[in-house]
């Protein structure tokens, strides 16, 4: 047993699982804030893509990765607020707006990418985040490769799990978010600014999703590729359900997906006899299974997807 735990292949698999889990985990945390406040954020995919793009361009232009991260977060907030205007102020169909934002994100990122870098064959690169050296911590069996061989951005992401949990469970803001997600009319009666809270939540949601996207370009690859999020924003929506819209649940569910992704990447090299296309399907099939198996047991916020109008009941 101990032999397996220190086996280099298994160690590599563990740290890859975490690395692959982080982008979807950040997006799912963003989805958590939005959904808990009653807004369905289908735009996570587009927000991730914008984060990946803006983060890459800013880091490329300035030579500082942290500038890239900060720019991505700001862009994410902006994207979140756009979604907010539509879903909160205009009361538009949240699915349609989300899909439109995602399509727009694909267009805008590839438009400006070509504008800035041209259509040349040489893909511009940045020096991505590198894993921190935490000495012997990295050699602890199982936990070492999982937790202590990651880069700075990954630790920020893991810290955000705790922050999200704390904010949602222990703070006044978290209570307000849950209140407007469950019963906006009651929350308003108690003096909570429903629209204000929802805007705040959707802005943070965009920031987190964009950070997840920035992880793809600034940490995982060091490049930007058109549509590089490859459906991770949608997978994050399934993770929310599997993780029951709870921060720690989201972390665990993301790890499961990260492990599936790491497994398929490794299996592609090994002579398993399974065609690589079937391995590539794994995360997507897993998402479908999760949706089919766990929907309805997670308990969505009662007012999820329902626009709120001040001084008017939503019940029809």
């Amino acid at each position, binding site marked *: 047993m101990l032999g397996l735990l220190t086996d280099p292949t298994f160690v590599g698999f563990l740290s890859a699982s975490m690395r692959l889990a982080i982008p979807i985990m950040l997006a799912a945390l963003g989805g958590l804030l939005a959904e808990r406040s009653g807004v369905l954020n289908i735009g996570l995919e587009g927000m991730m893509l914008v984060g990946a793009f803006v983060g890459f361009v800013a880091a490329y232009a300035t030579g500082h990765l942290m500038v890239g991260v900060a720019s991505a977060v700001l862009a994410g907030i902006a994207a979140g607020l756009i979604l907010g205007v539509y879903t909160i102020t*205009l009361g538009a169909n949240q699915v349609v707006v989300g*899909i439109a934002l995602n399509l727009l994100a694909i267009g805008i990122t590839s438009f400006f990418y070509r504008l800035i870098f041209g259509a040349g064959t040489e893909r511009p690169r940045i020096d991505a985040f590198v894993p921190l050296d935490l000495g012997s911590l990295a050699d602890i069996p199982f936990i070492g490769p999982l937790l202590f061989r990651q880069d700075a951005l990954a630790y920020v992401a893991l810290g955000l799990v705790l922050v999200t949990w704390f904010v949602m469970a222990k703070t006044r803001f978290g209570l307000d978010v849950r209140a407007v997600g469950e019963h906006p009319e009651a929350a308003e009666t108690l003096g909570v600014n429903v629209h204000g809270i929802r805007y705040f939540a959707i802005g943070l949601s965009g920031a987190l999703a964009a950070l997840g996207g920035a992880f793809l370009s600034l940490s995982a690859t060091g490049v930007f590729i058109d549509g590089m999020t490859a459906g991770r924003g949608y997978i994050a929506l399934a993770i929310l359900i599997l993780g029951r819209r709870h921060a720690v649940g989201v972390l665990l569910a993301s790890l499961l997906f990260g492990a599936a992704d790491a497994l398929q990447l490794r299996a592609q090299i090994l002579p398993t006899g399974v065609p690589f296309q*079937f391995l590539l399907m794994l995360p*997507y099939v897993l998402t479908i299974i999760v*949706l089919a198996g766990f929907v309805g047991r997670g308990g969505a916020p009662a007012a999820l997807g329902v626009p709120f109008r001040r001084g008017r009941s939503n019940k029809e």
Partner: protein
Amino acid sequence: MTVTDHPGAMRLRLPPGLVGSLAAVAAAFLVGALLIAAVGVSPLTAYGALFEAALGSRNGIAETLVRTVPLALCGLGIALAFRAGVFNVGAEGQLFLGGTAAGAIGVLGAGWPAYVLLPAMALSAALAGGLWSGLAAWLKLRFRADELITTIMLNYVAIHLVSFLLHGPLKDPNGALAQTARLTGDGRLPVLLAGTRLHAGILIVLVAAILAHLFLWRRTNGFRLRVVGLNPRAAENAGIDVRRTILFGFLICGALAGLAGFSEVAGVQRRMIENLSPGFGYTAIIVALLGATNPFGVVASAFLFAALQIGASTMESAAGVPSTLTTVIQGLVVLFLIGRAALPLLRDWVADRFRRRG
């Protein structure tokens, strides 16, 4: 608990009519013009090059019509599903599977007469697309899995599955590329306009649009479909079989997207290839919304987006504006389409300001 009251089945507010659609398009083009100007190019030059290429010549119009076919077929399917309250984002995958089925039958049936082979290819494509969409319907009706996410996931699965088939069992044994063997003459849709690529697929579009219109507005089942989309609970109370209607919405969308795959294979590529679609199924969502899910509106908006896509590469080479501008415009169209809800709010706000001053 029925399928009608899970959180994903929110009512779809249908987009506005003709005026709203045109205004949204105009606004999107205006923002596009600003982006072009930001590049340092005159918007008139760029748009001029775009529409000249797409509509300024016989061949340009033919190419635009060729591009209209997959967008319109997928758009019609998505629009019908919409009418039933189903948000099917899976047309892309359904198109790939339809194309694969058509390509496989086309190779298998080489030597059959055209009047047998073409219908067999079309039928198998519609069946393959319908089955793939039916999978999402089953997941929704049996397990209440939201079709929005399942259909997107099934798109990725379909594209990998097709890639496997084209690298493996369906691969042209005499070629190096991942594609089927070339179709014989009998497996191809006839060309309508000599010297161009305009094929009979456009006739399929017209027939499909007319049938969809008659179905929606002249048949009881079409009425049921619309009622289910507008208010599933009321439909259930009125004795309409909501689950069956939803299933139908899925199947018809899959079948039409599958037909789009067939027409691309039999009319344009003349074999099944790995990159059959550059996202027709996704653009078709916007086509359906812009066409206000009205069959003829859908065909018209498919034509508009087809022209945009066909002209875009010329715009890029002639004016140096990245062709992905068209994707930006497509996304903006939807945002403006929905954004028109802001107008009454804005009006109230302005009126309120004046009242306070006065």
